[in-house]
């Protein structure tokens, strides 16, 4: 039916095999006194069967719809830049501190990913940092990290 079903089916099949193998190591228990491995083991088996079903259905079902190639149409550059920004924020938050990290994050997204005008970038960045500081630190007492500068 769909090529994408074959690929996703294979992915879940691999995951399910890994889950089944790991679960055996957790002790399956016996009928009547299930061990910690039973539920993941059964779930893994069911997932494997369903994945196989998806794969075979995709192989044998004929279709007139041309193969979709959404993969080619995606602007991966912007996508991966956004993802990089997210990961960098998560990893650097404790080191840089909330305020510095947020300023850099917002400028990065607005200037390099979205290419907004500088006046908008500065306005949105400052407003966001200030607003989120007020909401999370002052109203919700979230104790955001101060970072190496201590601010």
């Amino acid at each position, binding site marked *: 039916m769909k090529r994408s079903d074959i690929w996703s089916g294979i992915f879940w099949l691999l995951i399910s095999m890994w889950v089944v193998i790991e679960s055996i190591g957790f002790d399956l228990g016996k009928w009547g006194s299930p061990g910690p491995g039973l539920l993941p083991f059964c779930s893994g088996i069911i997932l494997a069967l369903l994945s196989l079903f998806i794969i075979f259905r995709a192989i044998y079902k004929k279709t007139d719809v041309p193969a979709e190639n959404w993969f080619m149409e995606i602007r991966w550059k912007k996508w991966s830049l956004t*993802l990089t920004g997210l990961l960098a924020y998560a990893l650097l938050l404790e080191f840089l501190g909330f305020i510095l990290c947020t300023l850099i994050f917002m400028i990065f997204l607005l200037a390099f990913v979205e290419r907004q005008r500088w006046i908008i970038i500065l306005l949105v960045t400052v407003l966001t940092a200030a607003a989120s500081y007020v909401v999370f630190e002052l109203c919700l007492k979230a104790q955001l990290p101060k970072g190496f500068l201590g601010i």
Partner: protein
Amino acid sequence: MEQNIWQNILYGLQVCVVPMNLLYCFIGVLVGTLVGVLPGIGTTAAVSLLLPSTFSLNAASAVIMLAGIYYGAQYGGSTTSILVNIPGEATSAITCLDGYQMARKGRAGAALGISAFGSFIGGTLSCILLMVVAPPLANMALKFGPAEYVSLIILAFVLLTYLAAGSMIKALMMAVVGVIIGCIGMDLITGTKRFVYGILVLNDGVGLVPVIMGLFGISEVLLNVDHEIQARDLYTSNSKIKGLLPNLEEWKRSIGPILRGTGIGFILGALPTGGAIVSTLTSYGVEKRLSKHPEKFGTGMIEGVAGPETANNAASTSCFVPLLTLGIPQNAVMAIIIGALIIHGVQPGPLLLKNSPDVFWGVIVSMYIGNAMLLILNLPLIGMWVKILKIPYPIFFPLILLFCLIGVYSLNNMTTETIIMIIFGVMGYFMKKFDYEAAPLVFALVLGPMLEMAFRQSLLLSNGSLSIFLKKPISASLLLTAGMLLIMGIVGRRRVNKED
């Protein structure tokens, strides 16, 4: 009995009409409308975004606010569908068909008006039904032991896949994946660590909030940045919306759809259908079938707006039935509310009515008040929401990301949890691209551990005999229903396939 209900309403009012709770109700419906109007962010993401902000409140206020976001979004979603032809929420997608056509014919005001009034009527009637249905159901559920819970959860899983909007197999797969993710962490009975691999945070299991924010918040942003977003074509950008009150003829045509929509929404909303979406599709289908001019649907029929818009609001109220009586969530938002209750030390389940009547009645009565607030927010203030729609998405999406990041980090001040959220964000992105629904996964993530616990407890009670599930009458009948649905599902789908 009747007097009891009035006493309960009075009690609920006492909880609700405290200035602070009114304020939280207002914040909830305000944020809900905002989120509903904005296409880039969904209800589930918004509710999980605001979850951390409820930690400092008491349980009743927290749930009042989170519930407000949920049903508030059903109001807001229709605005975007009607004016821009982009669904503000998935539950308003069907409204685009006739709502936008009405706007093009100069009846935008009537379309907005009827969806707000329909939502109000649906929400209020649904609230009354909820009050009548919930207490007896909770009393019945008090008799439930672990065996009944196992059967009930199994039935819920079957219903979830049976009623899934997309592929039944894929919904089932996602439910299984959710169960597996729910297994991660330390096993409570034996202390065995499952799938932990030395990562400390995982000892307590994968948190619900990072998973939901990843699957519904981050992934939605990633889906939106991967293509060029066209400038929104606001139909009323130059002219003011006139005549919010539908005329007499339009009212006459709408009253049937509104009443039917309430019924459809209430019933489908209480079942684990993953949200109000199915109820909107059903309502639209029913109205089209009943209409004398089915061919005119899609050209601006007010029935096609009134029915679904009422149904989604009725459903967003009735989905509190299983939550408040059985402690079982029926969609991702309800799962978050369960999480909020647990964080506040309130045990969801049949005992909720007895142990925390303030939560039970306070939330129900807050829905009346919230619906009234929404009517005011959405009719006279419609112009404000239209202005907000004009803010370009490139400015919005960094804000959404930032709120997800800080929200998850501030749960436990742990970097690992933000990383988990990002991983689920990427996973949610590819799931969308490969046509897998995220809702069954979240549903199973909450129910999986409940199922495992209840299953093992039942076997302890019965000394290891599996027959306990069939010997108890309630449990047996629930399992029987589940079995019948499963068979009907397989046979029914095959017949549909053959007809293709």
